């Protein structure tokens, strides 16, 4: 029985919206009491339409947002209410890759600096090994050392996505949350990134939580999928089973909507 990498119980996030200072408060339940667990080495796909709460879940898992309710356990350790300071060591284990790689990288930092940053913050390797480590990371994600002096704006979308992936694996992360990692890329580049993610998963025994609205991509990448609708997980199960025999009405609609 493989170890449970991530376990989420009754996780909720409510936002309070006020149109103006005098109007009544309105509570938006972005995520409502969701439960799931992911074993090490497994990849779980999270699908659902925009506004269904997929990205909110991603942000909750890496604690970019404070949950309203529920618990998140990372390798058995409850990280739900850890302070910024005490969360830091756990951030090495769980990393996130965002959709718009260009926007996520500091435009004034070179690729070298961008890759050094996580290594220095988390003190992954000793100071004199950092240069070698940067080269190793570049090689792992299929980039050459000549890119080191460049800025993100000088690289293509696919190359920037590779840099984001390199930053995520730099801290020896075991769980990586991929929030639409390929949806802004061209068809010919998409495959390259998916193959890279697959290869890294095998080499480093990674656990993925894969958020995408492209069912073909999810089908390719994930063992299990969870379908989100209006903040709740309405269906979860092995990919083949969910796609071939969807139980919930919404899942049926979603699969039917595929071109």
């Amino acid at each position: 029985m493989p170890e449970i990498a991530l376990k989420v119980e009754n996780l909720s996030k409510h936002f309070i919206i006020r149109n103006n200072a005098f109007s009544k408060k309105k509570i938006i339940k972005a995520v409502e009491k969701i439960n799931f667990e992911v074993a090490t080495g497994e990849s779980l796909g999270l699908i659902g339409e925009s506004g269904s709460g997929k990205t909110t879940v991603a942000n909750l898992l890496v604690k970019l947002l404070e949950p309203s309710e529920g618990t998140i356990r990372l390798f058995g350790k409850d990280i739900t209410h850890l302070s910024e300071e005490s969360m830091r060591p756990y951030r090495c284990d769980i990393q996130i890759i965002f959709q718009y790689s260009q926007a996520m990288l500091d435009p004034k930092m070179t690729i070298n600096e961008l890759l050094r940053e996580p290594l220095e913050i988390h003190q992954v390797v000793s100071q004199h090994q950092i240069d070698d480590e940067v080269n190793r990371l570049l090689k792992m994600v299929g980039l050459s050392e000549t890119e080191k002096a460049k800025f993100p704006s000088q690289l293509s979308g696919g190359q920037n996505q590779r840099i984001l992936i390199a930053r995520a694996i730099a801290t020896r992360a075991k769980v990586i949350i991929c929030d639409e990692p390929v949806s802004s890329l061209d068809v010919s580049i998409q495959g390259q990134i998916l193959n890279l993610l697959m290869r890294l998963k095998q080499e480093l025994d990674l656990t993925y939580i894969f958020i995408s609205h492209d069912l073909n991509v999810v089908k390719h990448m994930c063992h299990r999928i969870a379908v989100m609708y209006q903040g709740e997980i309405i269906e979860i199960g092995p990919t083949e089973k969910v796609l071939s025999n969807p139980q919930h009405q919404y899942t049926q609609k979603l699969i039917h909507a595929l071109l």
Partner: protein
Amino acid sequence: MDNRLLEINNLKISFYHQHRSIQVVRGFDLSLNNREIVGIIGESGSGKTVSATSILKLEDETQSIDSGTIIFNGINLLELSEKEYQKIRGNQISYIFQNASSALNPYKKIGLQLTEVLRNHKLPFSKNIVLDVLKEVGIEEADTSYDMYPFQLSGGQNQRIMIAQGIISKPDLLIADEPTSSIDASLKRTVLDLLKKINQKSHMAIIFITHDFEAAKYLCEKLIIMYGGLVMEEGEVNEIFAKPLHPYTEELIKCANSLTQGDLNVYTLEGTAPTPLQFKEECPFISRCKMKLPECSFGIPKMTTLGTRKVRCIKYETR
């Protein structure tokens, strides 16, 4: 034939970058009949958006059109003054931008942004007209959305607002720049169906810019494939998918199919597309082409017409 709505010939566009002029679009031709849907497919940097925005002259001072003609309804748009252009822009030709959330004004409520389109073009406006358009594009709570700001809506909803803004003035031509790229699978079909419905009901011709093969196949009748600032292949959608002529098209279709078929290793095209700075006087696909010949580097291949189709590859050039 009087049915011709838009005819673009040999369009070349340059950008002024770091004290020199760089040509990003090196040859763009397009002919579009009334009520037709044409898709432009290409990777990022292939010049599809630049070509399309030039139809509306939405250029800034760093961009210039070097040569070519854009004939819309019998008028050469490139000869019009800015004032004359304003009568066409948004009124006869609408543009739906790619990233809806940043293309909408964050300070204005949805209702006002839509009313503004009508008011600016001196068309009759009322809340009911706006609500009808919102319902038409599938915004369920039209009344509530009318009083909301763009940031309060999701990406998919903002995309529909953009479409609403594009169709509210009932133009002859709608240019949709990647309208489905930021929304999810369940909505993609809805948006494409919506565009189809608009095309049939309001008789709008549509230029659909995308990098999504499936979407293009679903929506378009004709397809233009761009690479490296050039149109590489042009023809009916079904014919292109049944028998791609250009090696690039062939590879692209292989890539797209590989993912759908569930191959363990996705088929990919190695390397990246050349950026305008790397453009040379040769076939832009040369570095990734598996069928390249020494002749490929002797200059940009010419467009060859083969029946109803056109292709830019030396394989088909008659010697």
